[in-house]
């Protein structure tokens, strides 16, 4: 082959730099798969950081009246832990999966706006680094910490200049605005990809459930993250230009911030949790060897959750003193969410029923999610019972509840998803032995940490306290809770080691190691830059089932 000399071409010798060339490729990439991996690696780094913050919190709370951390440091840690886990772990890791998987599942060669995609990632990355740079600001040099300490919810007027001097809160505000811009860019891109780039035959009714859920979630991100961005801009105007939106001394309203925050904050919970349902909806059928039970109902339930989720926000505010009518309305709307989520749970059960369940690592995590999400859902309904909520809100019961959602359900689902798709991304299977260690250690650790917190809350332990008093019956629950962290750390270490080790030493996976049915398993592992040499044409929801069972294709039954 003769080479045409391009003006920018570099010689083979220069090209071979072992560090800078790959680095440059990764920095400049607009390939959805690489950006997906970047998102996931970014999120895993912050998962470690957020995990360290959580560990410090649990050390401080292991025994009563502890002086391991100062009050201020503790407040900084729970603020940064919450903010990090939601905005720098949950959102980016799910954006990473969506980036990687959606074009493959719909049979596309890339996303709709590859450069916007790259912009979204780097903006998110910058926002995350900016937020965490606050740890290193001037007060840190004096032995303190310049990081924000207003809570991840930033309730007004504690965030107003009168109550938080210095720049810590500004880092939080500006960091989150920037991360929000990245989220919106990513959501526009992924949703447009799903709407406009499906391969021939991939009607909306034939999309894999993960892709369906991702489409709904992107719309929710657009509708929910922008109100947060708006509220943060208003807060920034207060802090920077002396506006009075949340300045209660000049007639501003503290409750208005709460409404704005939770108009974002509650849909956000579903934005995080629904992709976890998406992972389950891919893993459970494949490992049960059965088609998903009630596909149309699963789609309808997803959309229903999306709609209901924007009308439940004030269930975070039952203690504010709203009218009985408003309290009842938000109780009912919150209770109703249990119906479509219940349908999902039952449909997964219906999928497993009569199947041949293969208890490999991805499926183990999925089964744990079913049980743990059941607990989270039930405690969620308890919290919707307003008079019970008056006792439970802002206690460790709530902490336990939402960690059952975000760790026990979402993080477990993400672990399952990593084990499931790792062979597609790297071409190698993760170790089953390490995977089982990871699973059992994490399962035990998680439940040891968070089951006792329900009881601590019911015994009167509020959230966000840096210590608790002895002889209030709280010692044993807190100690067990902290011991659980050690198991979770050990499990997490198994996971990270498995990720690294399997990259070189894992068994070669082949295109389709799980004998699965969606399009990503039709191409090689890892997929080529262009994903599919020839774009597939599909005739049902499970194109690879049709390929493997041409005598009994799915479209006869859909």
């Amino acid at each position, binding site marked *: 082959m003769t080479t045409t000399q391009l003006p920018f071409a570099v010689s083979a010798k220069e090209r071979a730099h072992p560090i800078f060339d790959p680095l440059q490729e990764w920095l400049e990439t607009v390939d959805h798969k690489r950006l997906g991996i970047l998102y996931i690696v970014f999120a895993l780094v912050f998962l470690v950081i957020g995990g360290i913050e959580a560990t410090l919190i649990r050390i401080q709370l292991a025994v009563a009246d502890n002086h391991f951390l100062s009050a201020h440091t503790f407040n900084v840690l729970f603020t940064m832990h919450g903010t990090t886990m939601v905005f720098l772990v949950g959102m980016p890791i799910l954006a990473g999966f969506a980036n990687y998987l959606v074009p493959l599942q719909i049979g596309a060669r890339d996303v*709709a*706006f590859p450069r916007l995609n790259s912009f979204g990632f780097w903006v998110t990355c910058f926002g995350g680094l900016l937020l965490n740079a606050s740890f290193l600001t001037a007060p840190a040099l004096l032995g303190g910490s310049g990081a924000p300490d207003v809570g991840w919810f930033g309730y007004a007027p504690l965030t107003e200049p009168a109550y938080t001097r210095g720049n810590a809160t500004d880092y939080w505000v500006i960091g989150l605005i920037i991360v929000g811009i990245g989220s*919106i860019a990513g*959501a*526009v*891109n992924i*949703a*447009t990809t799903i*709407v*406009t*780039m*499906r391969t*021939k*035959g991939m009607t909306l009714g034939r999309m894999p459930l993960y892709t369906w859920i991702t489409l709904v979630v*992107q*719309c929710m991100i*657009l*509708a*929910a*993250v*922008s*109100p947060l*961005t*708006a*509220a943060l*801009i*208003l807060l920034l*105007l*207060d802090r920077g*230009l*002396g*506006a*009075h*939106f949340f300045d209660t001394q*000049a*007639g*501003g*309203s503290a409750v*208005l911030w709460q409404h*704005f925050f939770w*108009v974002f904050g509650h849909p956000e919970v579903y934005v995080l949790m629904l992709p976890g349902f998406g992972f389950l909806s891919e893993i459970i059928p494949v490992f049960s060897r059965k088609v998903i039970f009630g596909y149309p109902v699963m789609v309808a339930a997803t959309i229903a959750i999306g709609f209901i989720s924007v009308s439940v926000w004030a269930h975070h505010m039952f203690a504010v003193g709203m009218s009985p009518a408003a309290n009842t309305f938000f109780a009912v709307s919150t209770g109703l969410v249990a119906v479509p989520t219940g349908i999902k749970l039952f449909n997964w059960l219906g999928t497993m029923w009569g199947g041949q369940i293969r208890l490999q690592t991805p499926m183990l995590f999925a089964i744990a999610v079913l049980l743990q999400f059941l607990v989270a859902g039930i405690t969620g309904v308890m919290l919707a019972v307003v008079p019970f909520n008056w006792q439970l809100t802002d206690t460790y019961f709530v902490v336990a509840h939402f960690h059952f959602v975000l760790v026990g359900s979402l993080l477990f689902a993400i672990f399952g998803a990593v084990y499931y798709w790792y062979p597609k991304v790297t071409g190698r299977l993760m170790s089953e032995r390490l995977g089982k260690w990871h699973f059992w250690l994490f399962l035990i650790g998680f439940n040891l940490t968070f089951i006792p917190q329900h009881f601590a809350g019911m015994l009167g332990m509020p959230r966000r306290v840096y210590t608790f008093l002895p002889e209030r019956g709280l010692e044993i629950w807190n100690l067990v809770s902290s011991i659980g962290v050690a198991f979770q750390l050990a499990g997490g270490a198994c996971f990270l080691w498995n990720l690294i080790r399997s990259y070189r030493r894992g068994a070669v996976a082949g295109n389709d190691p799980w004998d699965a049915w969606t399009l990503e398993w*039709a191409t090689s592992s890892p997929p080529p830059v262009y994903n599919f040499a020839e774009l*597939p*044409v*599909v*005739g049902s929801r499970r*194109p*690879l089932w*049709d*390929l493997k069972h*041409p005598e009994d*294709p799915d*479209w006869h039954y859909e």
Partner: protein
Amino acid sequence: MTAIPVPSPTPPWTLPRRGPVGILLFILAESALFSVFVAAYCYYIGRSLTGPTPREVLHFPVLMTVCLLSSSLTVHLAGRALANGATARFLSYWLATVLLGAAFLAGTAREWRELIVVHHLTIHSNLFGSTYYALVGLHASHVIAGMVMLLTVAAFGLAGRVRPHHVDRTDVISIYWHFVDLVWIVVVTVVYIIGR
């Protein structure tokens, strides 16, 4: 890989264009953004602890509104002209849109100058000032963003580089510009009618 079997016959396959879909999704996000600013404005109507009040200092911006709303028409006509291959007509309508947008911004600048210099209303004065500058400012910043896009296309147009097949791209700008106009109707209603 052997071909995946599909039921025959396969129906024709068309999907929406990515430009309009992308901008409409972006507008969904923008609508949510504006909703919060509008909600804050409505909530704080009449709650300022000190003056000046909207009734004392605001006048209904007739000329600005006419400019901005008619610019929606011109940008639409520009798009139609381009689709029909009339690039000269496209350019004149497009430049008219730019001028109307500029007139709108000039109107905003004049209004703000009067409020600040004559009436001493700043973002710091009271809740009215905070909400007024935030909402009108957010809208004006969107007009500015639209102007940047309009001017970019105008520059290409003046260089004779805009061809009929570019209508896909100008349509995206056009949709965004219509949205900005629509928001102005909401802003006018809230700030100059309800809020006074």
